[in-house]
């Protein structure tokens, strides 16, 4: 019996909503009848550090951790973080990356350099990479915190289930906060979906 497991790696920085976004993805997978496990490799419990969230779903999931080289989709909330974790992708994997940059204090004080072109480095390594500015999309919708819903929109057409399942889980998550917040998240989801579609097309024609 084939145990087909989908591996999704979500990466970013503490405080960006990486874990929440992955949890919503897990809820969608479960709603579709999959077994699912979600695990974090987070540093200390506060903000600003590297956060990766592993999601595995399929008929039966054993180890919650994704092995390097087996990720189907890498959802990168920040450009350098996507590059950091890019070796986790399968050769035919896809990276969906927010290309806005968050530069940490260790770079600002001059101890390290931020890569000149992290997205370019990923493409140079042969990784199918779709990038877009999720931060600006979210800010234009009125709130930077919508960024993680934009990212969920971006991955919505790259899952083994329909985008509507994911959207319903997002709506359920924000239902308590009122109709206006739900509507904002619907728009953020649609904007992320459109951004990924547009840039995927550019990728293909480039």
């Amino acid at each position, binding site marked *: 019996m084939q145990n087909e497991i989908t591996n999704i790696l979500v990466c970013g920085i503490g405080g960006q909503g990486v874990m929440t976004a992955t*949890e919503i993805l*897990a809820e969608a997978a479960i709603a579709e009848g999959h077994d699912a496990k979600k695990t974090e490799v987070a540093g*200390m419990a*506060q*903000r600003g*550090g590297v956060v990766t969230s592993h999601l595995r779903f399929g008929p039966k*999931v054993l180890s919650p951790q994704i092995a390097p080289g087996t990720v189907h989709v890498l959802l990168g909330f920040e450009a350098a973080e996507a*590059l950091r974790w890019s070796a986790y992708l399968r050769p035919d994997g896809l990276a969906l990356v927010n290309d806005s940059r968050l530069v940490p*204090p260790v770079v600002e004080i001059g101890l390290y350099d931020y890569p000149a072109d992290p997205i370019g480095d990923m493409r140079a390594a042969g990784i199918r990479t779709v990038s877009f500015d999720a931060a600006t999309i979210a800010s234009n919708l009125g709130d930077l915190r919508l960024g993680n819903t934009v990212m969920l929109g971006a991955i919505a057409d790259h899952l083994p289930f329909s985008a509507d399942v994911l959207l319903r889980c997002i709506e359920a998550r924000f239902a308590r906060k009122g109709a206006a917040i739900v509507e904002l998240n619907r728009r953020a989801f649609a904007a992320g979906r459109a951004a990924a579609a547009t840039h995927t097309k550019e990728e293909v024609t480039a």
Partner: protein
Amino acid sequence: MAAVATIAPAPSQSRLLLSGNEAVARAVWESGCKVAAAYPGTPSTEILEALCTYPDIYTEWAVNEKVSMEVALGASMMGARSFCAMKHVGLNVAADPLMTLTLTGTVGGMVIAVADDVGMASSQNEQDSRFYARFAHLPMFEPADSQEAYDMVLAAFELSEQHQIPVFVRMTARICHVKCVASVGERVAREPSGFVKNAERWVMVPAHAKRRIPLMFERDMVLREVSEHSPLNVLEAGKDRPDKQVGFVTSGPAYMHVREAFPDAPVLKLGMSHPLPLDMIKALAAKVDILVVVEEVEPIVENEIRAAGIAVHGKDILPKIGELAPEILTPAINRLLNNEPAPPAAPAPAVFPRPPTLCASCPHMGIYYTLSQLKNIIVAGDIGCYTLGAGHPWNALDTTICMGAAITVAHGMDKGRGAIDKDKKILAVMGDSTFMHMGMQGLLDATYNNSNITFLLLDNGTVGMTGGQNTPANGLDIRGNPAPRIDFRKLVEALGVKPERVREVDPYEMPKLFKVIREETKIEAVSVIIGYRPCVLTDEFKPARAYHVDEEKCTGCGNCIDVGCPAIHVTRREKAIKPSGKEVELAFVRIDPIACTGCGMCLQPCAPDAIMQVEGPRIVARLRPV
């Protein structure tokens, strides 16, 4: 968690996406448990956070783990089911009651959840709590996912009541924080059976304790039989192989890794990992060519199996540090079997490190910037967000050992200093919650023994590192209801600090802080400098208008960068020659207007006054009412 937690009716769904911690909380509640206590500690914190949202159960943030275990013991003596949770190092703090309550035993079912930080995401060591089950002669369960965590907590309460002893449920970060699907049930209420006076059982003087020690050894034999027949220990036969058959003994998260890497291998899964079911292990050993123990951290099961005369591999082929993921297991077993190694994985791209940072407006930044400007000092640090002061750009901590050690290590440094250190100023730095956890006795020791140290009490009114739990420092209980708020000035004075040696300084006012530290370190006595500002992650913090940098005025001196705020970013760097002929690198900056919450610390070292408020008046946060 300053807002009042909702006492939610239990979800009636049977299939939930639960973390291991949430699953434990659910099972504790369903078991009819009456009292549950814990001190926050990664990765165990969310157990009590989840539990306090359930109705009909008393929950508390205890001031430390020893207290939480004793509270649970007292409730058990009344015949109530009770529970306490802690991280691995917390169990060291609770080891004192543990080693005696194993003699008295318990009445109402008592479960101790201990969460090891395997992989060390947020701890000062990677100790293996399974030793404590051996040390205290108590049974230990080890779940491998959320469903098992839920099932095992319910089973642990039953075993506890059958044998009148507490039962450990040992988790690791990989169980605590993994979310997966779990089926749950409903709560069964229980009425405590009542306290029964029995001095020979509850009063552990030598004469009584001596009579109870043989009972503990008899119990070891009984529990060994329980383990041999426990449904939690499962022998999975696997598939026959034509070549050498490798069998595994494993437990906890390592079981999932073994199953992932070797789906067809025979496996003995230990759900009850102490006492070991040695007959089951012998049965597996007889069936396979090679027996391998896959256990995280210490070779405990391996050594016990070897002591029973069974040939076994373990830490001779596997690492003693961190998790044993399939990508570690598979090559190790391949080497053992002399199989062809798999091709090496693609190397990870080199990217700068991104350590956790203090938040914008974090009051600890003011403390560490100031300490970084002082010379000839030694600073003993402690456990909390403020341990980050050891990192860049401040490099302002010289030691960190364990909860509460800052004051006592500093005191020992003072007493142990020789001529070479006679002019050094010795300071201790500790947060409010750590001080109440295990720091107060150290301060009493320092005043009683006439120490010469300066203690900086960083009061941010919460347990910050674990996510902002309530404490006696903010006057709210675990559910957000009002509770007595501790007065630190009165407390430290009661511990023997002279009133004139207690100074209260706003940590945002760095020049004043600098002056007060200079003054107090010159005086040969125990001084306490209390710096109060609320943690920015709590409701008590009120953000002010953001600042911005006037590009015309910024001279690129970079002084503001040394404050360490994550909202300050370099826009360009330039080389310049000073009048002295020395080459310097200038760094021109901007402030991220979304990240900035207007504390104003960065403008204090700004030489050209280039930093100003975006618009309107700065909201000055009120100092704490006394």
